[in-house]
């Protein structure tokens, strides 16, 4: 493991994995608070948020393990910093792609009529849908890797960004701790 990650980069990678999952949970949970409080009470609403945070923590661990193992596919010669930067960026991109369909439902987006019409009228609609999806996803993965690989400046900027995000995520982990205390109180 030492040849792939330093202890510091492991911690940073975990925090980067935890960041989008906690952010998303917090956004949706606080969106739900008034609804839950109306149907039950404020303490129960806090309970719902707390369970959400703890769930996000466990999901972060799973996501981190996935990122950790995937990172071993990055050649050893590229170095630990590049590996951390690449895996962090890919982690965030993957989270963005996971948010996208949920945002679609959340914000009631609609696929433009012209796109649906042209897909329906095309000879192979399913094949075209896959082609469109790949046209977006492949560059979103390949381009960041290329940029990090080629540009030392971009690499430094990303590592700076990771440091800042790590600080923010530490705050989220503090929320997890509070959530754990809430859960203990609720279940004693």
């Amino acid at each position, binding site marked *: 493991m030492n040849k792939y990650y330093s202890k510091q980069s492991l911690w940073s990678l975990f925090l980067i994995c935890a960041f*989008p*999952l906690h952010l*998303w*949970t917090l956004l*949706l*949970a606080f969106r*739900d608070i008034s609804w*839950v409080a*109306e*149907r*039950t*009470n404020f303490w*129960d609403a806090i*309970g*719902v948020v*707390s*369970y*959400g945070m703890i*769930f*996000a923590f466990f*999901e972060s661990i*799973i*996501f981190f393990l996935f990122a950790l193992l995937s990172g071993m596919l990055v050649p050893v010669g590229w170095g630990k910093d590049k590996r951390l930067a690449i895996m962090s960026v890919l982690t965030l991109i993957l*989270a963005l792609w*996971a*948010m996208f*369909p*949920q*945002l*679609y*439902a*959340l914000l009631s987006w609609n696929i433009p009529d012209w796109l649906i019409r042209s897909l329906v009228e095309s000879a192979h609609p399913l094949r075209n849908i896959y082609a469109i999806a790949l046209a977006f996803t492949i560059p979103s993965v390949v381009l960041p890797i290329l940029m990090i690989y080629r540009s030392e400046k971009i690499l430094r900027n990303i590592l700076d960004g990771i440091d800042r995000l790590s600080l923010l995520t530490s705050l989220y982990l503090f929320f997890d701790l509070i959530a754990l205390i809430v*859960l203990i109180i*609720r*279940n*004693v």
Partner: protein
Amino acid sequence: MKIDINRRDFLKLAGMLPLGLLAPKLHKSFVSQSDKKNVIVVVFDAFSAYNISLYGYARETTPNMARLAERATVYHNHYANSNYTTSGTASLLTGTLPWTHRALMPNSTVSDAYVDRNIFTVFKDHYRIAYSHNEWVNTFFDQFKEHIDEWIPREQLTLFSSDRLLQKAFPNDRDITSVSWVRNIKIQQEGYAYSLFLSRLISSLEEKYTAEYRLQFPRGLPTARADGGFLLEHAVDWAVDRINSTPGPVFGYFHFLPPHDPYRTQREFLGHFRNDGYQSIDKPLDVFAKDQNDDASVLRQYYDEFILYVDREFGRMFDLLENTGQLDNTVIVLTSDHGEMFERGVAGHVTDSLYEPLIRIPLLIFEPGGTNRRDIYESTSAVDLLPTLAHLSGYQEPQWNEGTLLPPYQQPYSSSNRNIYAVRSYNAESTEPLSQASITIVKGRYKLHYYFGYSELEGKDLVKLFDVEADPEEMNDLSQLEKDITSEMLDELKTKLQEVNKPYGG
């Protein structure tokens, strides 16, 4: 003191041990030889009498209940004691009003005094079985478990439910654990969930498991949301099987979720009332309405179609029990914990209002060997059920209950001589006086609404009076025309309120 027990004595004593353990069950078995009847209470959650054709609703929602009613006592003006599950069910189970049992907040428990004073303690010589799809009702079962012989976990009668492990891990917080699990994982309901990745994985596993049932339920499987869905058929078959296979006498309390939302009927009833020309009465927007609900007529249609499913399953349950000869020795009760409303800008029952559709519920009592129909038009209350069932089963009516024997078991009976209350105080602490509440009092033909402490009322009280006999739709507020009646009923209500608040410093 020295006790000498040799090996032979020890073996004799050990041989008696199983007998000792079996003693309570044997006692109930001996009782079964006596004349105690089975008593089966079937509660359908959020079942409004307003939407039941048996009670005059324009859509024919209950053909089976109408068929069976020819052998029942049918109560036409029966009132729940609240407009939502926790308070309404606690009143059913304890025979006391919400301000007495104090289960006021959602998913709260009754006060300690009623842990040993409830319907299960009354039926002490019966084998007591309890089941509920609704987790808030299970909160009460948990409190009363010492007096329930067989409390069936909710998950036993649901399809694949990924929250089972959590239910076990967090037994003291089951409801909120479930709600949270739904918000984290159930992406298919809203299209989004707190979890970005695992929600997809777990939801698709659940969908795969329940796929074979989905064809039968195009609007989705009936669900209490936390579970992966359930079929009322399964619950009915299970209940009948338990009644048939238990030596008896059995007291069964089955609290089934339909027609509570989400209104997901079976394919057979889908679209049954679509474009049927039904026109609901146009009523003014209620002060507690969040906004004008444009979907109310669609939701009403879905609800009515869900009632068809409930009606069919109740009819099937009744027929199954009849075919096995159980009806010769069984009292069956059909009722609900509260109603549902689709008017005045309210759709559902999450409202502080207490209009008729929200609190008028069905009550049918089928006695063994009943062949005649009896219609009771006097107003009656959900708290009356406990003393009446005790009376029908040869138990003494408990002193602590606040109900009265239902007619025709009590003669003469007049609702003009009593006050029938419904109370909602959703944010009230159980140990504090009610400072924000909705209360109705029905006396004879009049119904008084009293609302106080709400921000919507800007610190003022709201009082309305309706003649529910002449104006069952509650369209004409008589509080300004019938000032004497209004003032008399309001005084009575306020005196009662003072009395119930007193122990809590009010």
